């Protein structure tokens, strides 16, 4: 049986940073990844990573405390302030570390790391590598793993997490290349599996972001926190919903409606285009809904213009070359002389596996970091540039925590006998589940279920929500869950069976969708990215708390937990 003291599920920034931390502490670990690590969604991040370095002109007075306040206010006061402070305080060290490891950050004339303004930030503190910061960071992180010879199991899809008596013992995973379903035992397991964007239509996310890590944890009775908080990025390219980084606005781009007006003046007169994402997304959607957008009545949902023309060719080619390539290749336009058609798109999952500030989940031996975790540092709305930071800070903290908790016990080379037995039991159950999927009656078409799920979620659990549409959404998701029991995996192949992979992922998507919809229905207030047309104000008296979802046979059961407040009492959130 495969055994490592530490197993990390997910080969993106958080997973790889944790692996480096465990390795550097002298422990054996391995990374399990659905794809080769450099194909992880971290690679697609564009705009930058926040840290109060104080390098940029106008940022000399920046401090980690100010970064913390911006983050807490940006979160609409739902973030746990001790966790935020930890993150912003560690930020400079993590950024300098990546630079020491060779990350090709863009530079100021004097050679220091360049920083650009970003939404909701009081100072320009977003460090960047042109507009391909995720690519620069992930490749650097992978290079450091190659240097250390860290073991990876590539193209493995984790199917279940083995938990007994409140303790995580291992995983059952599908080796996609061979079709074998295998157990992997570990003393410590980290989930770094990313977000669940593909549950929604109009997502900026990679196709592999199906939330299956979240689903597996949830099915193993690990609580998911704050799942109703889904970020809709203001500027996704119309048509493909490929991300157009906030950096476009950070470099000076305008948002313009069909009347030619910079409409953000109405919604956030001071911050304008650089208000936090939830505010800008709602503003854009309002303009479209009220008839001041383009593409009215068309199938795609309407759009407005992101205008970069006034930045000039030189600046665009130097600071936003990736954006330009995406526009040329995927929309056939050149932002140097044409405004970019954009609409809000699903982008980030603020919620996730409930963890504390060291990345520990409420199940012994289980940790989580990155987008799939909810510490919470992003609360009800994440600031741009804080996700890349989150992955590295909490990837390292979780890695350190796992290593420390194993100190002195790291000599094992085999799983404990009880663990082995229990894993073999789960292996049988998982193989049965795969056989059941292959032997289904096939009266339902999985792609029809998947398409309907995405439509329901983006239309009814999207930017503007109310009791009526949320109730409908929940009912539809539950109906889709019943229908999915009648799909049949039609390919009997063992080697690279995408039919099996995508259908397993579909089951997980429906579980997570139910948690999101129920959380949104129960939360009768508006906060951050969760906007209720029937409860338009923030209600701290009743709702300054985190939602915790536990799985039961009857569906998700919701509880609530307090928000950690250190320095900042919630105030009205204006920009």
């Amino acid at each position, binding site marked *: 049986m495969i055994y490592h003291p530490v197993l990390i599920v997910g080969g993106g920034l958080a997973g790889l940073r944790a692996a480096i931390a465990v390795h550097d502490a002298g422990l054996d670990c391995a990374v399990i990844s659905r794809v080769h690590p450099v194909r992880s969604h971290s690679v697609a991040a564009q705009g930058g990573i926040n840290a109060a370095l104080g390098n940029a002109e106008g940022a000399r007075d920046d401090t980690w405390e100010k970064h913390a306040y911006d983050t807490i206010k940006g979160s609409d006061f739902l973030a746990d302030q001790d966790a935020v402070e930890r993150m912003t305080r560690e930020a400079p060290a993590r950024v300098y570390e990546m630079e020491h490891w060779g990350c090709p950050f863009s530079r100021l004339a004097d050679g220091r790391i360049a920083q650009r303004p970003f939404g909701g930030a009081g100072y320009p503190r977003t460090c960047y590598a042109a507009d391909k910061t995720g690519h620069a960071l992930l490749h650097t992180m992978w290079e450091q793993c190659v240097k250390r010879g860290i073991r990876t199991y590539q193209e493995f899809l984790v199917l279940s997490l083995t938990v007994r008596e409140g303790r995580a013992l291992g995983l059952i995973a599908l080796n996609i290349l061979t079709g074998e379903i295998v157990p992997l035992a570990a003393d410590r397991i980290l989930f770094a599996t990313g977000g669940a964007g593909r549950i929604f239509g109009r997502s900026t996310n990679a196709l592999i972001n199906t939330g299956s890590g979240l689903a597996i944890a949830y099915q193993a009775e690990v609580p998911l926190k704050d799942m109703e908080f889904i970020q809709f990025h203001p500027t996704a390219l119309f048509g493909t919903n490929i991300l157009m980084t906030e950096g476009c606005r950070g470099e000076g781009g305008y948002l313009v409606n069909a009347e030619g007006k910079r409409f953000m003046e109405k919604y956030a007169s001071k911050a304008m285009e650089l208000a936090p994402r939830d505010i800008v997304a709602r503003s854009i959607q309002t303009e479209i809904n009220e008839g001041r957008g383009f593409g009215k009545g068309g199938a795609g949902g309407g759009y407005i213009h992101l205008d970069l023309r006034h930045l000039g060719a030189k600046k665009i080619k130097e600071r936003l070359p990736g954006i330009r390539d995406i526009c040329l290749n995927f929309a056939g336009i050149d932002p140097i002389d044409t405004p970019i058609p954009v609409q809000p798109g699903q982008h980030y999952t603020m919620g996730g596996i409930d963890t504390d500030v060291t990345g520990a989940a409420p199940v012994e031996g289980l940790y989580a970091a990155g987008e799939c975790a909810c510490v919470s540092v992003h609360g009800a709305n994440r600031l741009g540039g804080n996700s890349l930071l989150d992955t590295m800070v909490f990837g390292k903290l979780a890695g350190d925590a796992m290593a420390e908790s194993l100190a002195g016990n790291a000599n094992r080379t085999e799983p404990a006998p009880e663990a082995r037995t229990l894993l073999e039991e789960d292996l049988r159950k998982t193989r049965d589940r795969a056989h059941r999927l292959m032997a289904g009656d096939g009266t339902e078409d999985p792609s029809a279920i998947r398409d309907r799920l995405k439509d329901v979620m983006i239309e009814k659990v999207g930017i503007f929500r109310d009791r009526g549409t949320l109730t409908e959404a929940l009912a539809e998701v539950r109906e889709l869950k019943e229908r999915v029991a009648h799909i049949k995996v039609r390919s009997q192949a063992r080697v690279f069976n995408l*039919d099996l992979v995508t259908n397993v992922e579909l089951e997980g998507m429906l579980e997570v969708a139910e948690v999101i919809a129920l959380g949104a229905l129960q939360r009768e207030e508006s906060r951050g990215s969760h906007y209720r047309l029937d409860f338009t104000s923030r209600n701290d008296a009743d709702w300054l708390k985190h939602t915790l979802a536990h799985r039961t046979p009857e569906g998700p059961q919701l509880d609530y937990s307090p928000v950690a407040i250190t320095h900042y009492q919630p105030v009205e959130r204006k920009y």
Partner: protein
Amino acid sequence: MPEDTFALRIFRFDPESGKDPGYQDFQVPRGGRSGGLTVLEALFYVLEHQDPGLAFRYSCREAICGSCAMYISGEWKLACQTQVGHALEGNVVTVSALPHLPVIKDLVVDMEPFWRNYEKVKPYLINDGPPPEKERLQSPEDRKGIQEMADCILCAACHSACPSGIANEDYLGPAALTKAYRFVADSRDTAREERLTLVGNEQGIFRCHTIFNCVTSCPKGINQTYSIQQMKKLVMKRNLGLQL
């Protein structure tokens, strides 16, 4: 055949069936959401509606992850970045796996030879000195000097396109060599001598005969031949005892 479909001609190989590999045609509807239809989307159409046994790699769908490099209508391309309309020859788009890498199934190749070569060039920054408290300084000009090489998404199109590598799996290939140069040219790296030794041999830069297939095939517009030529110059200078 109806006007509103085209033929997606896929080179199939199923290791489990015992059948010979060969082309198979699928009729796929044209159009799609506003903005056309990509080859990757066409592959998903076949997977979901016609053949659940089709195998291909995917992740980002936005030409940054490097998963979906394939041989499409006679050119090396990323499937996600290729519009069906641009790849049609008559009414057919032909897709096969990256040439010169072992095929696992359909469009999925064994990337091991590619990753092995990548790892051989020590693809990570080497700097002997202790790191400073803050960032090492690097001028914007120096940083510009590595931009192009650092843009590589490790898709293996160039590796697959290079004729020098066909008969010789040990040839490092354009991607690994470009990665080597990315560090040779990085002002923060102190291992230039070691790197040039690693690549300055007949399995490295000297097997490049400036055929330029790599440059033509790169979906990111990187000039791999330039990187290799720069290292040839440095190695020649070193061999002649000149200052690098």
